[in-house]
């Protein structure tokens, strides 16, 4: 059970009085602290075990500073698994299969290039109950003037032993540009287009932290947890949308970690902001308890569930329109080169009525590969 009294209260006030009063602020860097960041998650699945090591950066920069040259190992009660640094700097991978098991305890050990020793707490791998269902409902958000689909997740633990949950997701959606182009111009010559660039797929990952605890319920049940709201102002619902929800069981400690992280990095900007504090993960410098290490090491099985939302699942009165500015124009064939030089793309030859003309539009309205891929993902149905 998650009490978000204050957040709701804040949102309310925000909308009430501050609608125009939030301005972007470019943060200057102050008192930069260069800290080790550990990002490690162990699952019982087939995927190779991976640890990302990096350094924190000043607030005003966006560079990723990998921590390379470290030696990392994972230990369970009996064995030690040594990771190797992959081609990507700062990413360390176990080359084999750890075959991690639920109930077993794991710990990571890190020695950085400079010789500092770090250890995580000992984490017992938890079993994640199956997702009962991922559902969605068409909902209007009058408070923000949006229409869209609210996606919910439902789960329960028949053993009543999980209580703490977290979700991530991958979303993929098929979309179409307004114009299906079948010709293009190649050195002044109009050629038929072989590759289709009208329908593409885009994908994304969750970036916000979603968690719930059922500790205050009589049964370990998560009913209709609102995961995310997909609104019609994006291109997600133009054609077909799919979301793959991943469910993780958390311990009370990791739940608190995620909760605090969410509170101070996603939940500010209200009248009653929480006081930002240091968020302690579960990785420590062996010889200096006071050194702050960012990040967390956790271990659990993962449950996944994928659903599809079709255009037809939305009310017929709702037209997701991501391309409101697309227009086409008809130009006589002798001006093709001039148009192409100006950056216009050809859509088609329009034979009727004579004389023939060519339809043009901007690339943005034609080429879906600009920000997607025209290769259908293998899970697509």
């Amino acid at each position, binding site marked *: 059970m998650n009490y978000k*009294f204050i957040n709701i*209260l804040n949102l*309310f006030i925000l909308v009430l*009085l*501050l609608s125009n009063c*939030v301005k*972007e602020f470019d943060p200057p860097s102050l008192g930069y602290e260069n800290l080790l960041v550990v990002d490690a998650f162990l699952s019982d699945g087939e995927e190779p075990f991976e640890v990302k090591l990096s350094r924190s950066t000043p607030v005003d920069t966006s560079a990723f500073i990998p921590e390379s040259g470290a030696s990392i190992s994972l230990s369970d009660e009996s064995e030690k698994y040594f990771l190797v640094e992959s081609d990507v700097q700062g990413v360390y991978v176990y080359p084999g299969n750890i075959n991690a098991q639920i109930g077993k305890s794991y710990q990571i050990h890190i020695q950085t290039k400079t010789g500092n020793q770090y250890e995580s707490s000992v984490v017992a791998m938890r079993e994640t109950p199956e997702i009962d269902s991922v559902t969605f409902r068409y909902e209007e958000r009058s408070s923000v003037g949006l229409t869209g689909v609210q996606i919910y997740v439902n789960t329960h633990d028949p053993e009543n032993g999980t209580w703490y949950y977290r979700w991530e997701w991958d979303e993929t959606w098929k979309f179409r540009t307004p114009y299906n182009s079948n010709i293009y111009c190649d050195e002044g010559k109009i050629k038929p287009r072989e590759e289709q660039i009208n329908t593409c797929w885009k994908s994304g990952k969750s970036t916000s932290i979603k968690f719930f605890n059922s500790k205050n319920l009589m049964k370990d049940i998560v009913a209709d947890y609102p995961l995310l709201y997909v609104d019609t102002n994006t291109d997600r619902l133009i054609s077909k949308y799919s979301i793959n929800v991943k469910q993780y069981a958390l311990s009370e400690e990791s739940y608190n970690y995620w909760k605090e*992280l969410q509170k101070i990095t996603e939940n500010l900007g209200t009248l009653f902001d929480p006081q930002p504090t240091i968020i302690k993960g579960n990785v420590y410098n062996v010889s200096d308890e006071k050194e702050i290490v*960012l990040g967390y090491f956790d271990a659990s099985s993962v449950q996944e569930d994928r659903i599809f939302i079709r255009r037809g699942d939305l009310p017929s009165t709702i037209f997701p329109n991501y391309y409101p500015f697309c227009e086409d124009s008809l130009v006589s064939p002798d001006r093709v080169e001039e148009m192409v030089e100006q950056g216009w793309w050809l859509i088609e030859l329009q034979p009727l009525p004579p004389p023939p003309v060519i339809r043009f539009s901007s690339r943005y309205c034609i080429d879906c590969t600009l920000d997607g891929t025209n290769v259908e993902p293998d899970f697509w149905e």
Partner: protein
Amino acid sequence: MNKLLPFIFIFINLISTKSISQNSDLIVSGKYENTPFNLFVKDIERQIPVEFMYHPQMADSIYITAIFNKESLNNALTRVFRETQLHFFINEYNQIILTQGYEIRADLPINFFDRSNENMIVTDFQAFDFMKEEEKKVKLQNTLENRVVEIGNRTRLVDGKYTNLAGYIRDSQTGEPLVGALIYIDDPRIGVATDQFGYYSLTIPNGEQELLLKCIGYKDTKRQVILYQEGKLDIELIEDVIPLKEVIIESEKDVNIAGMQMGLDKIDAQSMKKVPPILGEVDVLKIILTLPGVQSIGEGANGINVRGGTADQNLMLINDAIVYNPTHLFGFFSSFNPDIIKSVELYKGGIPAQYGGRISSVLEVQTKEGNNKKFVGSGGISPVTARLTFEGPIAKDKASYIIGARSTYSDWILKKLPNASLKNSTASFYDFFGKISYDINDKNSIYMAGYYSNDDFSFNSDTIYNYTNQNASLQWKHIFNNKLYGVFSGVYSGYNYAVSSTKNEVNAFDMNYSIKNLNAKIDFSYFPNSKHKIDFGISSIYYGLEPGTLKQNGNNSLITDIILENEQGLESAVYLGDKYDISPRLALNFGLRYSFYNYLGPQTVNKYAPDGPIEEGTKIGETTYGERENIQTYQGPEIRFSARYSMNDESSLKLSYNRMRQYIHMLSNTTSISPTDIWKLSDTYVKPQVGDQVSLGIYRNFKNNTIEGSIEGYYKTIEDILDFKSGAQLVLNDHVETDIVSGMGKSYGIEFLLKKKTGKLNGWVSYTYSRALIKVDGQYNGETINNGEFFPASYDKPHDFTVISNWKFSRRFSVSGNLTYSTGRPITYPVAKYNFGGTERLHYSERNQFRIPDYFRLDLSISLEGNHKVKKLNHSSWTFAIYNVTGRDNAYSIYFVSENGKVKGYKLSIFAEAIPTITYNFRF
């Protein structure tokens, strides 16, 4: 002296109804060369049957050189006085009255008033009506001022002995007692101020005395008494409406010089009206914020910080009842209806012994008493609220009532907001106030008051919030004798909030929190002689808290009910304070309050391993205590001391020290307090907070006491201030002690204030330099903030400059302005950015090491009063106000959030634009 002049004119007019004609018959002759004035007078008096009346001082430096050869007296005197400051007036009894600086005219009063109103539009008959009305009052007052009242039995007079005189000072129109009115005699200078009931007890020498009276907002007056024996004298004062601009009566408003108190700010209803309203509401708490030494987190933030104290360290009282949440709409409006407020007093330092329980300040809202002479009503309409107040006598001059209500209709505004927001949301509030005052007889009075405020709001028809304050008080005042009276009070206060949600059937819940207290107290005031005023009393407060319940809401809810154990506490105190006037120059006020506190069962108290941190992991057991069993006791003396030394009539020096103990604390881990924050009693683990403050002030009045200046410096320390561990869970937590750490606070500052209370242009200018620092240096891991060093509190704003001014162009038209500048408040700023789980996150470490931009705001308002015709059915006024005229987007906070994987910084402003409002007020 000159302030009394109009009275003198009228007085003279009363007895000299006919103008005189016999002046011309009086002929004088003589030759004077450098003749002292008194000899000249004697010579004239010898020649003709006249009598000179003058103060010898007026003329002691005047020498006459003149030759009169059978000249008329008039001509002679005109010549003699031509070169001097003196004027003469000959009445029908052939008395020659000399005045200095002013002329007495025979053709008063009509011409006098005409003359004084040259600028008035002649057709302003309403004003003329008003004048006549005023004139009548003044006449009445004059008779009272000069009539000699004999008190006691003449035969009992013992010369040279001191005798006590006591009574009430009231408003002549409404019968309302006046608080803080000064009554004194000049020689020897002995005086007192009336208490909260308008009662005074004055011990002065027997015999003929002139009692002088002063009260802010009222005309100065005096009474002639011959005191034979102990007795009573009730006095009514006339409100100083200043209708005629030439008759502005400047009184010696020297309360701040002669008074004992320091660190006290008083705002009365009059001055409240002079501050530009916010969203159409005159808001006491917002005005309090303009005073030196008072800060807040930011605009619209709930809670005030007085001299570096936290928001829960203010004792807010209305009719002696504690108000736990003094705001509506999360802090945007104060929950005190301005129409029922008589005055507001804020004690920042030198807190008298009768108050206790909070460390930083006492904010006492004095409510009006009903008009005991006639029925009146008043009200107002602003874009956000409507309010209505009625008052009137139940039994004329004996009993009265006042009821006031205020409600918002802001819902329609929510619906009208341009971005179609909040269609399903509501916000509403209302408050009620009622009071009955009954003077049973000379010795006994009873006061009954009740107050209720309520707030409801919901967001998207999902979660519904509600919070209410409930207060009731019953007071009986009994006068034992002139020198001793007592007030017996029973007071109830309560606060509760509820949150309920039904959107998700499985998680549907009802959550409740409540705090109630019952306070029984007896306060005595004893006036043994002219040099001492002794206050003493006892008080006991019983607290009952329901720290939180969570219950299922609906049949399908799976919520496990959580009911935290109730908490009980008893806070008791005895106190004694003696104000001792050692000499006219030096006065001391020594007070001692001894408070003791019991945390009472039934309760289950968690036990933790000794010599270790208090954490869930170190819990070793529980102890169960039975009904009313004492679990923990805290006690201690609280010394209150202040001293005043008057250097002269215009300046004084004051020093004070006070210690305060606080047994109830607010738990809030947000920077600004919210309605859903909870109060917690001191228990086995939560120690009482103890605050010590020393302050020193210099007070000086300028320009005939019309301008008050003061400089006050203070240094304050607070022990066991509460702070919270990272990730603290404060609501519905039955082991909240594991999430709490204690620290210490330190604050100091210097406050400069210049205040002009009267005249066309009035208001104040204040500048404060202050620091508020906190140190949290716990023994164990997670109990330290900023490495145990002092860090600035969230409300630490070193520079603070405020100007409040009001310019009265005419009786009906005035303009007010409010200008505020302060240093931006500190915030906790991120020191590093990192990538975790594919998203950028921020790392915060040192608390409050960055400041948001400085704050600046200018507000203006224009008040238009309706006409002043006395007999008019209702009086009305319009106020047009613009909040934040310059439209500056002052930062409320600067914050960072991770959005779509990236960190983004934002500046949040509240009221970032100029906000105009119109308010309509009426009286009938």
